Structure formats: C-alpha cells, structure tokens
C-alpha cells in the first residue's frame, strides 16, 4: 500500500552480501518532515539501510522509493534531492572550507547567484564563518563534521541521510550538531540519522531499532520507553556482584542492567518491590548507598529490547 504522505517507502527491502544478509525484508515508511533515528548494535544494518536509501547499493530484492523515485529502476534521478553524509566522510583535507563548499555546490548545480548567500548562511549556521579560508584538514573533528553537514546541505536537499554523523565527536560539538539538526527539522527537512548514542535517539521524532538486518521496533521515543515492561529501581550497592546475584532470583525482578557500580532493576511494580528488595538486602548483610525508583531511559529501553529479541 502506497501512502502518499511518506517520503521514504520501502517494501520487503533486502540486501545480501557474500556471506551475510545485511538487510532483511525491511518495511519502512518515513513521513515528510520526520526526524527519524536509526539505532541498533554495530552490524545491525544501519549503514546498509542508509546506503540503500541514498542509491549507493544495488538492491537484492524488494523495493525502495524515495521522493517517489523507484531506486531499484534508477538510483541517479533522486540524487539531486538528497543530502547524504557517509560515516567515514572526512572531506578534502587540502581544500579550504570555502573550496569544499564550492566543490559540492558545483556537483549539485547550485546556481552561481544563489551560492554566496547560501554559503554565508551555512557557515553561520555551522559556526564556521571565521574559518572560511582554513584548510579542512586543519579543522577540529567536530568542525569537520559540521563542514561535512554544510556540504551536504549546500543544495537544500529535501531529505538528509546521515550515517553516525557524531561518532567520535566531543559532547559539546555533538550537542551543537544536534541543535543544527533540530533547526533543520523545524524548517521541515526530512532527516534520517543513524546513531549509537541514546540521548540523540531521544531527540528524534521516531526511532527504528535495528537488529540483525531487521527493524523489530519502530516507534516514537516516548512510546518505546512506555513499552518497557515494568518499572525501574536504581540501586547503588557496596557489593554489586553479590547484590546482583541475590536479586536475580527475587520475585518481581524482570531484568537487571549494570551501570558502573549501580544496578538498574526492572521490576513489575516499583512501589511494591522497593521495600521488599531493601529487606532482602539487609537480611543478606548487603549494604547499599542509595536505592530509588526512576523513570526508564532510552538506553534501558534499548538494552531491554535487544535482550528480549535475543532471548
């Protein structure tokens, strides 16, 4: 069923490599103006998915339509309308910031009279105005990523496909980068972005959780958090190994996740189980620094989903 409001539309999309199925019968619909996050463990098929959407890989079977173009038939026609940023993308180091932008403006046929103001706006946007003539190789990692984003935006694409754009970038630059993405999202650009960071996933309007070439979960962040079975108790025991093995077999404890020295316990009913767990710890001589109920985060939801799938 074609839905006219979806800008990306895949059915039974499958891509095999020599020994693996990188993407297996993916049905994905992304609507106009969505900020769609792809999350999942390494090797889950996020990069393959984005490359297929950008027309960079041949399809093994199934169909993919982007902006109404059938990429299986012709992957070139859609390219002027999308902005794709590869995971490895490191720009041309010997070219200056301006020359990199000019290069991509040429390839995307940006009209000469429009270019100067658009470049100025993008540089401003990315906070790179004062580095216009600096060689890309001499920019910091975070600035390189922002320049790369500026290059993929030079033709004002309707869709942005970003493959882990903030991997290896410091937290401040990461936040700045996402502020830019949020602005673009507000302006109406459709964005599909893969990320290993759950705080970033939280900023998306919808998240597709990928696992082993499939997308078993595709919901808004709020609904994903809501879908976690049970409620969360955060416990900081003195001996987390002892506490962990004790609580594993407790009635009402669904799952235990370890975070540094604290344990996150997913329980069926936090109000009911909190006193029960405290009593049990005391009875076994295991002391703890703090125990409290907490709202579930994306990260817990993510780990919980993966465990459910693997089990």
């Amino acid at each position: 069923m074609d839905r006219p409001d979806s800008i990306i539309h895949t059915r039974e999309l499958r891509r095999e490599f020599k020994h693996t199925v990188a993407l297996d019968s993916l049905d994905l619909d992304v609507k106009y103006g969505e900020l769609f996050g792809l999350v999942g463990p390494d090797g889950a098929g996020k990069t393959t998915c984005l490359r297929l959407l950008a027309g960079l890989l041949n399809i093994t079977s199934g169909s993919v339509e982007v902006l109404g173009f059938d990429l299986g038939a012709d992957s070139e026609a859609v390219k002027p309308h999308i902005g794709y940023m590869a995971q490895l993308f490191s720009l041309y180091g010997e070219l200056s910031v301006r020359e990199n932008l000019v290069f991509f403006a040429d390839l995307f046929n940006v009209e000469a009279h429009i270019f100067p103001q658009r470049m100025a706006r993008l540089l401003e946007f990315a906070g790179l105005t004062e580095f216009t003539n600096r060689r890309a190789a001499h920019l910091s990692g975070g600035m390189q990523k922002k320049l790369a984003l500026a290059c993929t935006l030079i033709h004002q694409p309707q869709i942005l496909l970003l493959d882990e754009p903030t991997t290896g970038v410091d937290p401040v630059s990461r936040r700045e980068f996402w502020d830019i993405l949020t602005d673009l999202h507000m302006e109406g650009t459709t964005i599909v972005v893969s990320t290993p960071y759950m705080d970033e996933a939280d900023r998306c309007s919808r998240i597709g959780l990928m696992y082993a070439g499939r997308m078993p979960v595709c919901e808004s962040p709020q609904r994903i958090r809501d879908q976690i079975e049970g409620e969360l108790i955060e416990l900081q025991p003195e001996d987390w190994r002892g506490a962990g093995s004790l609580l594993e077999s407790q009635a009402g404890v669904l799952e235990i996740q370890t975070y540094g020295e604290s344990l996150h316990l997913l329980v069926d009913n936090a109000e009911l189980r909190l006193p029960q767990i405290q009593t049990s710890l005391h009875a076994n001589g295991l002391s703890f620094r703090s125990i409290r109920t907490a709202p579930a985060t994306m990260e817990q939801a993510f780990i919980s989903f993966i465990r459910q799938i693997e089990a």
Partner: protein
Amino acid sequence: MSPRHIWAMTRKEIHHILRDRMAFFLVIISPVLMLVLMSYALAVDIQHVPVVVLDHDRSALSRAFIQSITAGDDIDLIAHVSSMDEIEALLMRGTIKAGIVISPAFTNDLLSFRGIPIQIIIDGTEPSSGGFAAEHIGLRTEEFINASLASQFQTSDLNIDSIQPIDLRIRTWFNPSMKSEVSVIPGLVSMVMGFPALSVAMTLAREREHGTMEQLMATPISRLDLLIGKMIPYAIIGMINVFLLTLVAMALFSVPFNGSFLLFFALSIIFLFAILALGIVIGVFVHTQPAAVGLSFLVIFFPGFFLTGIFFPIVAMPEIARLEALFLPGTPYAVITRGVFLTGVGLDVLWPHAVMLVFLWLVFTVCAALFFKKKLG
C-alpha cells in the same frame, strides 16, 4: 556531460596535486628523476676492462700487437703474467675480466699467413664486460693483421694490390658512436610516462580510503564526468612531463631529436589517455593506495620495462609475453619515441603504432567505463 562537473573535479584534483607535496613530487618530479637515474645506471658503455697478457712469443711483433689492442680507454692491460695458472687465479678473484694468451708461434704464423694463434679467456660470470673485451680484441686484431700484412707486402716483392687484405667495415646508423644512452633513453621516456597512470590509480584509491568516493557517488555527477575530470589534470601533467623528459634527454644526454615535435606530442596525448584509462581500470580494482602502487608496478612498470622492447627485443620473446606486450600502450609508444628521436620517421612509417595506441585507448576507456560503477560493494 556537464562541463561544470568536470571542471569541479579537475580543479579539486589540481589543488590536491599542488598542495600535497608527496603528490606533487610523484607526478611532476619523479618521472624526470627516474629518467635521469635510470639513464646513468643503464649506460652500459663499458670502458677500462682489466686484462692480463701471457706472451709466449716475446717478439717485437707480439709487443706491437699487445700495444695495438690495449691502446685507448677500452681495455686496460694491468700486467704481463707468465703462466695460465696466474690467469686463472686472477679471473677467479675477479681482478681481471679477460686473459690474452699469445702462442710461441705468433710471429711465424702471422708472417706465413696462417692466421694468428691467440687465445682469449673470458670471465663468463659477467658476460657484458667479457663479451665486450672479446669483441673489442677481435676487431683490433683484424686491424692489426691488415696493418702488419700491408707493411709485410711493402717489404716483399709481391704487389700489394694483388692480394686483398681483410676488409671488414661495420657502420652503425642513427647512433654512430653506439652510445647506449642514446638508444635507451627514448624507450625509457615511454616507460616513465607510466607515472601519470600510477597517480590516477592512486587518487581513485585515495578517495576510497578517505570515504570521499562514497560521498561523490551520492552526488549527481555522472560516472563519465567523474573519470574525465580526474584524467584531465594528469593528462596535462603528463604533457608537461613529455616536454621535460624531451628536454632532459636532449640537453643532458645529447640524444638527437630527428622527427617532428608536433607528431610526437600528438601521439603522446593519445598514449597518455590510453595509459590513464589503464590507470583507472587499476584504480577500480584496488581500495588502498599501497595496493594501487603495487598493481601499477605489476601491470605498467615491470611489463613496461621488460616487455615493451626497450631493452629486450619483442621478437625474441615467447608467444605469451609477446601477446602481453601487444596490450601495453608502452609497446607502440616505445617504437614511436625511438622513431621520432632517433630515425626521425613520420606518420607514414609510424601509423600502425599510432593506430594501435588509439585502439588501446578505446579498449581501456571502455573497460574503465564498464568497471567503474557509482555503487558500493
């Protein structure tokens, strides 16, 4: 075809070459450097070959003979020895490359027209020096015989004109002094012109290494524009190289240029596009720059050295090697470089080789266009 896309690629590539010192060295300096170094190393003109003489005759005539063959710079007489054992010992130690043994009957046999009994013992482990010594001694011996017989006739009653002494005249054309640089350098020019192909293969591999190739594939640039844009700067640099190499060959090594410059440059452009297309085919199959270098040496430089007939005649090669030589742009180009430099022939003679160049250009361009895809994996 979009001129704007092609120009964007070309300009980017030129920036890269001019700003990356390594790239600049590789494409502009190294062909000239290679030519100069190899020309000196391969200048196989042998001089000062050390020899000893074992003279059993010890006559005035034998001394004159020894003097005549060791005159000049070619052969250095380092000692007179008194036994074969000494010659053997010196040869084994490598002190000498040849030993000359003069029989006790030297004067007698020579004057009674029974030929001259001399023996030359050569160090076969280094055939070029030894062979050169033997050839040289042979030539000088003939000269000596002619000269001494002539003087003999003058003192006898016989009429000099009634018996013709040996008259052997070898004349070498195109390279009268037989300087090996002169014959080798035009061939070397065709070989070092493989560098632009290496560079273009490396630049494709480099885009892959840096992830920029993936980025390029996501843009609307067509495959053909991408490849043309990448080839143009290396074709220009290749022409600069042709010019520099010609200059170096003529100025530094006094290689003559007897043909037409215009024809040479025109055929060089065709050769460049053929070898650049081959470079792109290489670049399509490798994913790292070291692999690009390795494969270029395997496909362009080694065969360029051994199979294009620069040093080893193609007619002497086994069938399979001749077949491979046929598909190297360097093979017809080597004939062309030698032709325009040394014999000074024109298109009336060189046309089959020019046709072959055009053919190879088309073959490799079609291969490049077929193999280079705007897809990953």
